[in-house]
C-alpha cells in the first residue's frame, strides 16, 4: 500500500507508545498518534487529556483536545486542577507528546515566539501545558515535520525544556522526568546520545537519504552508528488513519 510521509510519521510515532501505560495527549498530531496507538497495538493505553479527562475512548478523532467525545464514555472527567496536580504532577504519566515550532539539538522546544519575546517576528500560541508536561512526564516524545525553520541550533525561547545544555544539565536542575527520548519527523527518527544528550538520527524513513535529512536541519547533525530504516506503516494502521481517524486527511496527507 502506498502511504504519505505524514502517515509514516504518525504510524512510527504511535509505535513509540508500545508498552506505555498512560499518555498525555497534546493538540494536533499527538492527538491522532495516541488515538492510533490505542486502536492498534495498545488497546489498554490510557489517554489523559489536559482538559480534564482520564481513560478516554474517543468515538471520533477530536479536532480539539477538549472535544465532547473525549468525555462521553471516559473513565473519569474532572477539573483541570485535579488533572494537573493529581495526575501529571503526581507522576502518573509515562509519556508526554509534544509538538514544536522550533527545536534545538538538545531537544529544547519553542512554541512561544520567533524573534525577541518583547517584539516578536511571529507570535506563536505559547506553552499551554507543555512547560509542565516537559518536566513532569516520565519521558517525552516530540513529533514535528523536519525543516530548517524548525530544527535550529538554538531556539529563540525555551518554552519546554529538553536536555537544556546537554549532558546532565537536566539532572542538575532536579527535573523530575527524563526528558525527550525521541523526535519523530516525516523524514527520520532522532534520539539523544546517552552522554551528551545531543540529538542524532537513528532511523531513516524508506527512500530518505542522509543528505536530505541534513538539508533540513540547521546544524551539522550526527548519525547513529547503526542507522535503521523506519518500518513502513501497516495496512491496519493506514486503514485506521484513513477510515476512522482522519478521513479528511487534515493531518495525514
Amino acid at each position, binding site marked *: 500500500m502506498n502511504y504519505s510521509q505524514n502517515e509514516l510519521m504518525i504510524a512510527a510515532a504511535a509505535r513509540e507508545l508500545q508498552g506505555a501505560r498512560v499518555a498525555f495527549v497534546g493538540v494536533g498530531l499527538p492527538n491522532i498518534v495516541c488515538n492510533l496507538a490505542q486502536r492498534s497495538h495498545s488497546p489498554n493505553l490510557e489517554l489523559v487529556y489536559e482538559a*480534564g479527562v482520564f481513560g478516554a475512548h474517543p468515538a471520533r478523532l477530536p*479536532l480539539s483536545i477538549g*472535544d465532547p467525545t473525549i468525555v462521553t464514555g471516559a473513565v473519569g*472527567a474532572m477539573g483541570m486542577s485535579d488533572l494537573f496536580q493529581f495526575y501529571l504532577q503526581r507522576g502518573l504519566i509515562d509519556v508526554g507528546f509534544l509538538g514544536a515550532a522550533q527545536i534545538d539539538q538538545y531537544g529544547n522546544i519553542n512554541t512561544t515566539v520567533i524573534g525577541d519575546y518583547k517584539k516578536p517576528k511571529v*507570535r506563536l500560541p*505559547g*506553552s499551554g*501545558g507543555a512547560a509542565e508536561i*516537559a518536566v513532569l512526564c516520565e519521558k517525552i516524545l516530540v513529533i514535528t515535520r523536519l525543516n530548517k525553520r524548525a530544527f535550529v541550533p538554538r531556539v529563540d525561547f*525555551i518554552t519546554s525544556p529538553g536536555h537544556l545544555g546537554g549532558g546532565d544539565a537536566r539532572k542538575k536542575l532536579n527535573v523530575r522526568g527524563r526528558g525527550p527520548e525521541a523526535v519523530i519527523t516525516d523524514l527520520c527518527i532522532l534520539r539523544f546520545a546517552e552522554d551528551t544528550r545531543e540529538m542524532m538520527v537513528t532511523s531513516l524513513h524508506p527512500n530518505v537519504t542522509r543528505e536530505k535529512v541534513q538539508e533540513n536541519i540547521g546544524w551539522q547533525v550526527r548519525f547513529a552508528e547503526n542507522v535503521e530504516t523506519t518500518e513502513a506503516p501497516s495496512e491496519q494502521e493506514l486503514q485506521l488513519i484513513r477510515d476512522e481517524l482522519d478521513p479528511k486527511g487534515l493531518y495525514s496527507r
Partner: protein
Amino acid sequence: MSKVISMHDAIRDLVHDGDTIAIEGFTHLICFAAAHEIIRQRKNDLTLCRLTPDIIYDQMIAAGVCKKLVFSYAGNPGVGSLQAFRRAVEKNEPRALELEEYSHFGMVARYLAGAARLPFYPLHSYTGSDLPKANPQIREIGSPYADEKIYVVPPLNPDVAILHAQRADENGNAQIWGLTGVQKEAAFASERVIVVVEELVDERVIRADPNRTIIPGLIVNAVVVEPYGAHPSYVQGMYDRDNAFYVEWDTISREASTLNAWLDEWVHGLSGRADYVEKMRARFESLHPGNAFAEPINYGEYK
C-alpha cells in the same frame, strides 16, 4: 429573590471599563454570548484572563475592547494561530496588547490561589523554561522541610467571572457535567460572578444532586438564561462543538477587514443572542448529539 436578568443588563451592570475579566471554559462552555454583548456595549480597556484566549478573545481583541491578556495558550485549538491576537502583538493593531503569560498549570494555580485567598500557589513547572524570565511574576521559593526550591505564582482575582453552565436555579446554584475546566476556581476567585445557563431549573433539581453543584448561588450576582450561548464552543449533552466554524474563523480572521465585516454582521448588527440563534438556526441542527444518559443514583431519604 431571583437573580435572573438579561445578558444586556448583566454586562451593563457588572462589567465596567478597565475591569479584569475571566470568561472561562476549557474548550467546553465558553460564553460567546457574553463576549458579544461586551463588544456590542463597547466596553474598554479590559484585562482579559483565560487559559486559552481561543477565538472568543480573538474577537474581543479585534473589536478593541482588550488592553491586556493574561493567558497560557493563544491558539485556535486544532487549527493554528489566532490571527487578531497575532496582529495585536506583532503590529499593535487595532491597539497594543499587553501580555502576562503563564502555562496552563500556572493559570490553574493562579485561579486556585485566588479562589482560596492564598498569597501564592506552588507548582512543579517552569524549571529550565524561559517563561520565568518573560514573566517576573513567576517566582521561586524554598521549602521549610528540605533543601528544595519550587516555583510559585500569585493569586488571580478577576473583578468579574462569566461562566457558562448546563443549568442553574434562580439563585445561581449552577451544575456542570463534562469538562469542568477551571469554572469553579474562576468563580470563587472573582469579586463578581455572572452565571450563564442553557436551562433555568427549579431549586429542587439542584438539591436532588448536590454533588454536581460546581458554583453556589452564594457567590453569584446574576443568572442569565441564554440557550446556545456557548456556540461555537459546546455544551456537553446539549450541542456539539462547531468545529467547522473554528476552521472558518481562520479564514475570516486572516484580514482585519473580513473580521470586522463578520463582527458587523454577527455582533454589532444583532440586538442580542436571540437574534444570533435565529440567524444561526439551520447550523444548530447538525450539532445535536445522540443520548448517553448517566445511570441514576440514589441519595436516600433520611428523616
